């Protein structure tokens, strides 16, 4: 019965269509390494000599390290707190869903998925500034709030599939509720935690709209995507410099992906199955 024959037509089709995925990346890379003079030549060609000058200039012009730091300062705490807080919210809601009040609360949270950011945007700008949190820390808080609906939905679904008997055994042993959550449940949630962590990392890191409206044009606080936007008009026709800057902006996530590719894909896949 065992047949190990490859489906070659499918393989070849898929290999050909990767061109569409790789082409923009190819353009980004070759353009970033070209000199300005080479740009008047064939844009598809490889650079004559690979120069790092564009990168050195781009790092200086856009304040790349500062932007990287800002992105990290926002993303890392957001991911950690999201996983810790949202998982426990999902847990307590899932385990108390039989209560009418909690069920209502659950629907209240989940219905936020239908609220477009546009309607929150204008009031949030005035509110965060008058409360003095129109800064990186405020951003973390806002991400926690804006992701709550989706993550609660995922966590509740997952927790429901964990048998209650496990906890009951622990209760017999006299463990506190907190301890049960932390020692019994949280480890069981690990696969879904990974999923949430990946989605949150990408969503936060690549987000442009929230930093735009909350941090405005302040270079000092700008994240990597916002920095690209702020400097876009100053790159002028200096495309080589601009592309070096784009490539720098893409690199952190590409590196994460190359290192943890298997983990990232399986994390997302698992999320889909829930």
């Amino acid at each position, binding site marked *: 019965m065992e047949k190990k024959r490859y489906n070659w037509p499918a393989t070849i089709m898929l290999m050909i269509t990767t061109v569409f995925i790789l082409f923009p990346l190819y353009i980004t890379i070759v353009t970033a390494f070209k000199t300005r003079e080479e740009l008047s030549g064939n844009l598809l060609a490889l650079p004559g000599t690979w120069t790092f000058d564009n990168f050195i200039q781009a790092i200086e012009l856009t304040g790349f390290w500062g932007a990287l730091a800002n992105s990290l300062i926002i993303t890392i705490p957001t991911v950690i707190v999201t996983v810790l807080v949202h998982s426990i919210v999902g847990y307590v809601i899932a385990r108390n869903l039989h209560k009418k009040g909690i069920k209502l609360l659950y629907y209240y949270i989940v219905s936020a998925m239908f609220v477009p950011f546009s309607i929150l945007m204008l009031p949030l700008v005035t509110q965060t500034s008058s409360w003095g949190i129109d800064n990186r820390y405020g951003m973390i808080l806002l991400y926690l709030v804006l992701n709550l609906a989706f993550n609660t939905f995922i966590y509740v679904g997952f927790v429901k599939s964990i048998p209650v008997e496990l906890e009951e055994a622990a209760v017999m042993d006299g463990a506190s509720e907190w301890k049960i959550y932390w020692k019994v449940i949280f480890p069981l949630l690990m696969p879904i935690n990974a999923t949430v962590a990946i989605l949150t990392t990408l969503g936060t890191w690549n987000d442009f709209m929230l930093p735009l409206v909350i941090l*405005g044009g302040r270079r000092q606080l700008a994240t990597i995507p916002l920095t690209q936007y*702020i400097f876009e008009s100053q790159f002028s026709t200096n495309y080589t410099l601009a592309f070096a800057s784009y490539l720098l902006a893409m690199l952190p996530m590409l590196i994460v992906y190359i290192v943890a590719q298997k983990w990232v894909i399986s994390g997302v896949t698992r999320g889909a199955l829930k």
Partner: protein
Amino acid sequence: MIKRNKVLLSSMMASGLILGACAGDSNGEGGSSDVVTLELFSNKSENVATYERLIEQFEEQHENIRIELEAPPEAETVLRTRLTRNDMPDIMSIGGNATYGELGREGVLYDFTNEEALNDIQPAYQDMLNRLVGTDIEGDYGVPYATNANGVIYNQGLFEEYGMEVPQTWDEFISLLDQAQEEGIAPIQFTLQEAWTALPAWNSLGGVLAPENFGEMKTNGEASFQEDYDEVADKYLELLEYGEGDIFGVGYDDGNENFANGEALFYMQGNWAIPEIERNNEEVELGFFAFPASNDESENNLVSGVDVLLTVSESTDHPEEALAFIEFMLDQEVATQYIEEQAAFSSIEGVLQEDPVFEDIQEKFETGSLTSFPDHFYPAGLGAENLIQEFLIQQNKDQFLQTMDNEWDSVINR
């Protein structure tokens, strides 16, 4: 009117304190207490490099003051956001347009009326600013700094090659365009992928052909686009025929590069484009003339406005330091450096732009044959540039003029 939002705000503040305490602050200011850091907000990406050099000079002279320059894209939107969040930059370097007028009316800007800074400013430009704020409001909320000229940039090399002369009337201008076409060079460089680049020509035409106080009249129902901009629209469409290639697919930066490389004869832009063009090709020789919108030579005034005004936030924590920067900028030498690098004009008496590029318009300045930018008096929410860009693409004049009228009315009513 009642200040109802105060109540709402204070209740928010109360709850905000709890959160604010744990949220901390990270506005990136901080630092040692002796050094004052001020934010300079500029709405022009073109003057970033110049400002950086000037800031360096200023900081050398004032060791206890640091200036941070912010020049974000869509700067007016950002500035409005800042106004909404009650977080105005300390020092602003912005254009003399409707947004400035609104800020002035809102009372968020410092009143310079009693400052010596204003003594050397040409009164005509100060009046222009005050007209934007509205004559019913007392005070001078900005210092006109750099002024501009909106017209036609031409390539002198090509001009000489074909024995052309600066046109004084519309017909002369058109015949040059025809000649260029016959010679096989693109008559006009358009960069209409970016909506705002539709404005310079629009302003050149409107500044001469439409009534000077159109904005006011329109709001009072005494004028309309359908009546007063008919000729403007017709002539603009005529010009469009002299663009070559993908006129709606080229952006400003690419257009500057093309023009620098001699790919077109005329470029309907303002003086601000000149350093950008020269940056692409140092060899290029440029000239500049006032747009001859009319066949009556005496009507062809130069469209000029306040390109950059300096102002200070009413609520800045460091008014003295901020004013020190303004004073620095108004220094004759600094002002001269600014206009030389920016190819701009100064609103300070005695600071003259001597770049030969502007030979042809010196006379206009000397005789005061100037008129202001029509669009600076359009309401901010109108989005005229997008509507004009759309008109140029679709070329449906009647519908366009009607839309302009309707949009204006509905923006006013909001």
